[in-house]
């Protein structure tokens, strides 16, 4: 009976358009009060306890580093390097857009921001170079989604917290899948090369672009190198990222003034605020679920229906692709990671591999209707209607699905570095 009332409360709150933190908090309070017969004060205790964790520091610090680095002209610098490197390859400019998106996304940590920053510069350039409108739109919209799989990534930190796995391991595990997806997108671009898309290698241009942009490109490598070598923890690497970004933007690129800092801190607090309440309330609900052994019961129930690891992987991929279409990535991770991870472990999957697979699924959600945020951003910046943008995405969606299958069924792509 209580379960039915709880589900009804959930539906009513969704119908009333309540923020996710209200939904999460109401459900947690309801469950503690009516099912566990505890005081609602326990939720408050839980949220303070959940927030009181050093690992959470990595979230605002990575957000801040991204905010600092994306204030200046980093997109142009990255694009110039990528263009110079890929010039002699057929479809070089399209490949340059994928590479620029991947590096920019790793720095900014945001898919829509990547699409806006790189897309607004490269879309006219791609059209001018003779690329089909749909291909140009598709490559940039899909390239923008790479941000959440290329480490460091905020969704990875959230997954690690909710599923109880190491952030550093997840970051390391993100490297292989990022390379696979980037390669697949580059191969697609290569075979769709328009006539005359091959340029000439220009050493002078390459060196000039490298001189202007090397420090921007270097940032993800400093962070990943530090993490990979075991030199930094996730929080330390986030602090180093902020320090690096401040030095580059203040003293080298000189594109940031002291007066900009207050705004940057304020914006970071706002971005953290969007996540913070949902995250800590979800952690409180997660504690309730663990206390009531809900994930374990679900595992027992599921093992009667799903017999093998392969069936589980297929089933969970379909579920996550559907979820990605209707839910934003953070909500999906907060709600599903604590439930699905024990199941994945039960079926013999490494939780880190499962985390990466989940994030790749939800990455696809960025470009699938009805709430694929990159579709709306693309429609806005390319000034095309939504249906044209969706049509441009379709072939690339299949490319990403191929990547997803490879990442799902070949664990070593993710786990080789862990």
């Amino acid at each position, binding site marked *: 009976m209580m379960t039915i009332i709880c589900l009804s409360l959930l539906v009513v709150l969704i*119908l009333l*358009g*309540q923020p996710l*933190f209200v939904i999460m908090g109401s459900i947690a309070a309801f469950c503690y009060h009516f099912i566990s017969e505890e005081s609602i*004060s326990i939720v408050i205790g839980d949220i303070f306890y959940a927030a009181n964790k050093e690992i959470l520091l990595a979230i605002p*610090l990575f957000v801040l580093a991204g905010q600092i680095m994306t204030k200046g002209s980093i997109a142009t610098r990255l694009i110039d390097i990528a263009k110079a490197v890929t010039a002699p390859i057929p479809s070089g400019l399209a490949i340059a857009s994928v590479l620029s998106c991947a590096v920019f996304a790793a720095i900014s940590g945001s898919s829509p921001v990547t699409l806006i920053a790189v897309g607004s510069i490269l879309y006219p350039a791609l059209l001018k170079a003779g690329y089909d409108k749909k291909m140009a739109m598709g490559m940039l919209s899909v390239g923008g989604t790479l941000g959440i799989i290329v480490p460091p990534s905020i969704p990875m930190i959230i997954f690690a917290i909710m599923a109880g796995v190491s952030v550093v391991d997840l970051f390391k595990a993100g490297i292989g899948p990022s390379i696979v997806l980037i390669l697949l997108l580059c191969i697609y671009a290569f075979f769709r090369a328009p006539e005359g898309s091959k340029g000439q290698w220009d050493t002078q241009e390459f060196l000039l672009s490298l001189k202007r942009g090397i420090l921007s490109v270097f940032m993800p490598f400093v962070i990943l190198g530090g993490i990979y070598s075991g030199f930094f923890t996730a929080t330390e690497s986030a602090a180093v990222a*902020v320090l690096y970004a401040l030095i580059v933007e203040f003293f080298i690129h000189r594109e940031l003034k002291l007066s900009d800092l207050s705004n940057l*801190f304020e914006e*970071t607090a706002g971005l953290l605020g969007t996540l913070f309440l949902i995250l800590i309330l979800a952690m409180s609900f997660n504690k309730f679920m663990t206390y009531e052994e809900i994930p374990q019961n679900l595992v027992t129930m599921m093992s009667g229906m799903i017999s093998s690891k392969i069936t589980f992987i297929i089933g969970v991929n379909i579920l996550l692709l559907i979820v990605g279409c209707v839910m934003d990535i953070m909500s999906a991770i907060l709600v599903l990671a604590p439930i699905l991870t024990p199941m994945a472990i039960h079926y013999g999957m490494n939780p880190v591999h499962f985390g990466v697979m989940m994030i790749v699924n939800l990455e696809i959600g960025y470009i699938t209707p009805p709430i694929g945020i990159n579709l709306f951003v693309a429609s806005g910046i390319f000034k095309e209607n939504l249906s044209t943008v969706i049509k441009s995405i379709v072939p690339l969606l299949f490319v990403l699905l191929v990547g997803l299958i490879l990442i799902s069924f070949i664990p070593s792509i993710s786990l080789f570095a862990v």
Partner: protein
Amino acid sequence: MKKMIECISFIEKKMAALSMGLMTVLVIFDVLSREIFNKGIPWAQKSAVYLMIWGGFIGAILVAEKAAHLRPEVADKIWGEKGKLTFVRVQNFVMLIFCAIFLFYSYKYVAESFSFGDKSVVLQVPLWVLQLVIPYTFLSMSLRNIFFIFNPNEQLLLKTEFGS
């Protein structure tokens, strides 16, 4: 009421920025001190965590002011153009009830912490001081909800980031 909220909002923005700034400085100095002198600052990480908690909670208020908290939008169309104002009122009324309940229980929680004299182990600061931001957040968000209930147009005018 609008003037009062604007004034509170100004102070909150500065507090949030200050929390984030101090948090960043502390973590950076801690890491540098550990890497250069092989000795971290013992209280730095914990202080940074509490500053992040303050920044995160106040950040949530700032997001509520812009009505930009993540939320499912599936039912928005059901209300139609004519029902928009009613929708905003009902939406904020439900949020107000939620915030009022959480304000009450968080006040109780902090009051208990005060009466027990709980202290942070690392910082030796009374915990209730650090926890005070929780009831404050729900109180401040309630003010925004009351404002939007009486001025639903103000919420509709905002450039929202719902669902992003």
